[in-house]
């Protein structure tokens, strides 16, 4: 698994990817052609993947995103060093924080 700031990217075995996912609607790329895993509303800074691949929004145990990189790729962010990812499927997990009575997302 790989961690860039508040985003964790966890490899998922091909056989564990739900069968409907390859045909599910794909998340659009942003104006720069990147797959955005998490976007900061204020700075516009993004954890984003460069290279070929697809991002599927997937509620449930694999959610919110499943990332497929058939040739590997790089995840970049304006304030964090880039990380090279091998080819395969990944689950994208946003960091959260404990709040008594609830839980909230972290955004860096």
């Amino acid at each position, binding site marked *: 698994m790989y961690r860039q700031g508040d985003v964790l990217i966890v490899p998922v075995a091909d056989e564990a990817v739900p069968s409907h996912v390859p045909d599910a*609607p794909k998340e659009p790329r942003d104006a720069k052609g990147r797959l955005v895993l998490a976007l900061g509303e204020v700075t516009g800074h993004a954890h984003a993947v460069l290279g070929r691949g697809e991002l599927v929004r997937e509620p449930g145990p694999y959610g919110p995103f499943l990332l497929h990189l058939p040739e590997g790729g790089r995840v970049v962010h304006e304030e964090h060093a880039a990380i090279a990812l091998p080819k395969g499927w990944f689950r994208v997990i946003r960091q959260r924080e404990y709040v008594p009575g609830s839980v909230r997302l972290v*955004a860096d």
Partner: protein
Amino acid sequence: MTITQENGTAAVAGGPEDAAGGDRAEETARWRASAVAAVPADRAAAEEGIRLAYRSAGLAGPERVVWAGSPREGVTLIRRGTDFGASVREAVRTAPWAAERRRLHEELGAAGWSRRWAETGGALWDATQALVDRIRAGVLDDLAEDDPAARTEIGLVLLDALLGQHDAPWLAALDTDGSPLAGPALVCRSAGWWWPFEKVAVVCERPVALHRDEAGRLDHGDGPALEFPDGFALCAWRGMPVTRAFLDELRTLTPERIRQEDNAELRRVMLEYYGYDRYLSDSGAQPLHRDGTGTLWRIALPDDEPVVMVEVLNSTPEPDGTHRTYWLRVPPATRTAREGVAWTFGLDAEVYEPLKET
């Protein structure tokens, strides 16, 4: 579609569908900017948009356009107004919106429409709608905190508003150029909320200040998070509404005052504002546990569950070579730093093992 070399492999297919998607992404970014614009209204453009919306609906247009400093003042003007005529919201906005949505739905099919929404309005909806809800609640509380009848009446006026800049999410999803929605789209890019009546259109200024956190929630410790030119303002800390008096008090906090606060949510805000690190050092707290992922701290609070936090170093150094430290609160039963960090990603301690961190 030009994918720049910034993409590294530049391997995005260049088919017409992708080109449309790329243009739409840029367009969605522009709608996003409209939704959070905190600059004076472009009054000439807004009034042109209003008249265009009336014309598209086959109406003569308002005799007067009245400006309000905020949605609160807009509501007040409408409640006092005697000669505005009937609301023409249905003809000016709702009917053309429904027709355009129906046309697109037929053209794209259910799956295509769903994809269009995900690419456009869906990305703007949550943060914008949260802001709209907060403004409505703020107007209600400011004008009629303890008057149920007035609250009902004001609530109806608020529900009747066209949202101007905050209509950006659904306008982003539809075709607005040269369509019957061109008028509302121009108002969205130029002004705040508005109400069309037969004889008068009431239209609001945009905020002069808007502070949000990276998750898009209202958030400011040094003044209102949202403020309009007439003084209507909302205070919030990471999305949680707080009063102006509470905010003012944050600057003079002491550990003693924090411990005395009965309301757990407000105490959490106080701790966050004061700084966990400062509070830890002032209260002489001892770390519970250290490992390769960070340090686990615990602050006991009287009559409340303890605050347990992991202190984590950012792996990417700052330009000066230092590492930024941050604290994340974790469940009180957490025993080790690794368990705490793993919990923040919904994982068990034994499986949390990043190969690389930046």
